[in-house]
């Protein structure tokens, strides 16, 4: 028997790691050793932290490179890193470090930030709690998704990627227990890019996938 799908919610609390970088080389050095949760936070935590999306840069490292180092070349390169393409945080860490090292190799001078504009490494603790809402069949999702809190979207669609063995969203995993009946919907959900967007927009995209599968608009 397939277990019911319980809707969970989450909240993040941010913690300073105490590490900071004044220039690009220091950023590279700190990145090599910082807590994996810090790298995760600077890519994904921003989605639960703010609803404002910087139209130019998608992660905190890129934003800092642009606004504090005023080095738009490295900012653009860092911004294009898609964390979804990396199987683990360690893999993502290697990619960021590689890009920075390549840039340092090409530059004559190490870009510096002014005092007070150092990169501050932070990480988070996630508190997960039960909303008491649950589904026994997938039919209810169409109605439920648009009303889900943004914390639930984060938990089931983003946090799931580092929590589950398949590195996938919770909806697809649960739907796959029903055999092939939902394979088209699962494909749609799996193809949603959770990066380069806000949680509100992500909720709309997920809702749209369920609606279209159920013959809606």
């Amino acid at each position, binding site marked *: 028997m397939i277990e019911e799908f319980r809707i969970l919610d989450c909240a993040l*609390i941010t913690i300073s790691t105490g590490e900071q970088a004044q220039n690009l080389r220091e950023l590279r050095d700190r990145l090599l050793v910082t807590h994996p949760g810090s790298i995760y936070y600077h890519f994904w935590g921003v989605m639960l932290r703010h609803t404002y999306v910087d139209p130019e840069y998608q992660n905190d490292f890129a934003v800092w490179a642009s606004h504090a180092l005023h080095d738009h070349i490295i900012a653009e390169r860092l911004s294009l890193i898609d964390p979804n393409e990396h199987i683990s945080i360690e893999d993502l860490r290697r990619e960021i470090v590689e890009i920075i090292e390549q840039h340092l190799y090409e530059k004559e001078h190490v870009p510096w930030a002014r005092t007070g504009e150092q990169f501050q490494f932070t990480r988070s603790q996630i508190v997960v709690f039960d909303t008491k809402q649950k589904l026994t069949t997938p039919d209810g999702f169409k109605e439920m998704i648009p009303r889900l809190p943004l914390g639930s979207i984060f938990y089931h669609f983003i946090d799931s990627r580092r929590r589950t063995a398949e590195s996938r969203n919770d909806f697809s995993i649960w739907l796959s227990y029903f055999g092939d009946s939902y394979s088209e919907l699962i494909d749609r959900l799996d193809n949603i890019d959770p990066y380069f967007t806000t949680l509100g927009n992500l909720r709309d995209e997920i809702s749209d996938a369920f609606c279209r599968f159920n013959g809606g608009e």
Partner: protein
Amino acid sequence: MDNLLDNYAGVVGYEIIDHLKQLAAPLKGMKIVHVNSTKEGGGVAEILNRLIPLKLELGINASWEVIEGNSDFYLCTKKMHNSLQGDRDDISEALLKNYEETGRQNYEQLRDKLETADVVFIHDPQPAPLLSFANRRKGKWLWRCHIDVSHPYRPIWKYIRKFVESYDASIWSLSTFTQPMPHPLYLIPPSIDPLSEKNIELPLDEVDSVLARHGINRELPVITQISRFDRFKDPVGVIKCYRHIRKSIPVQLILAGGGATDDPEGAEVLKEVKDFAGDDPDIHVLELPPDAHREINALQRGSDIVIQKSLREGFGLTVSEGLWKGKPVVAGNTGGIKLQVIDHYNGFLINTSEGAALRIRYLLKHRSILEEMGSRAHQFVLENFLITRHLREYLTLVVALLHGSDERIELELPGNR
């Protein structure tokens, strides 16, 4: 009181309130005590004024205690405040001794409440020594720092640090404000209360009548800075900015502020400001009592642009207040202001009086951009800087603190999938 949460739901939506209720569920009945040094005036008192009733309505046994001291105590803590923000202001041994003795006396007064509390929040340096007397404490103690301590005057920070490092954790408004500590450093920006007298929607005729009472001409643009008369808020720099603008656009300036009971320097700075303003009839320097919240609200709503030309700022709640009223804010590129004003999006970040004048002239000449920025300003605060977000983070923090330093805390979850 019964419907406080419902009232907030009317502003932020029921989704946010349900979220708070679920986070608060495991904390029901828990005794949480906040301690600071002033009941009115200043951002800390404003936040606590509403945070406590909200926690109570969520079923948490929350209370707020205020420590008391003599004039030397407030002189000492004002110097500490300035020194932690970077002023080189030495403090005599006698004042420090009085500071510690005041802490001891207040601890004796509050002993029962503090020793039986599950969680104690100590706000800012004034009550920081209380923990050193709490040998029989039961709960977790947190030090909440509302000040920018990024470049402190080291001898004074070294003195304060010895009290602060024994806490179980500390809370800071921004990561750049932090100092190394042997405990977790949580980051929680403060917030404004949309239902307080200072921020609630006002009828237009009330706004008009407040401005008329102060002799403001509604036909001319108004720029306003609301803040205590404090050198870090640079009120003289605001007048310089106004004079630059006046060369090309007729404009009126309101500089309004109330005093906080723990700020003995206010009168001195106010005199400097009045002297500098001279007899210009379009500069309105208003001394307001600490409870003039509705009046401040009206002044902000009656303004075209809000200015906050701080040189140093802990957070600068007046920025979010201005943004909430749909006004673009032109503000100093410092501290927590950088978190609230997104340059060219909901206002402008500036470094000089000239820079502020340039941006204000631009907005006054491009009214459609002013309106567009104002609309984004309101939405930005709705989503990021209201007290409901602040409360959510405090609740999350308490839950996290009670569960240790694990990266993931799952509250009595059933087996899922």
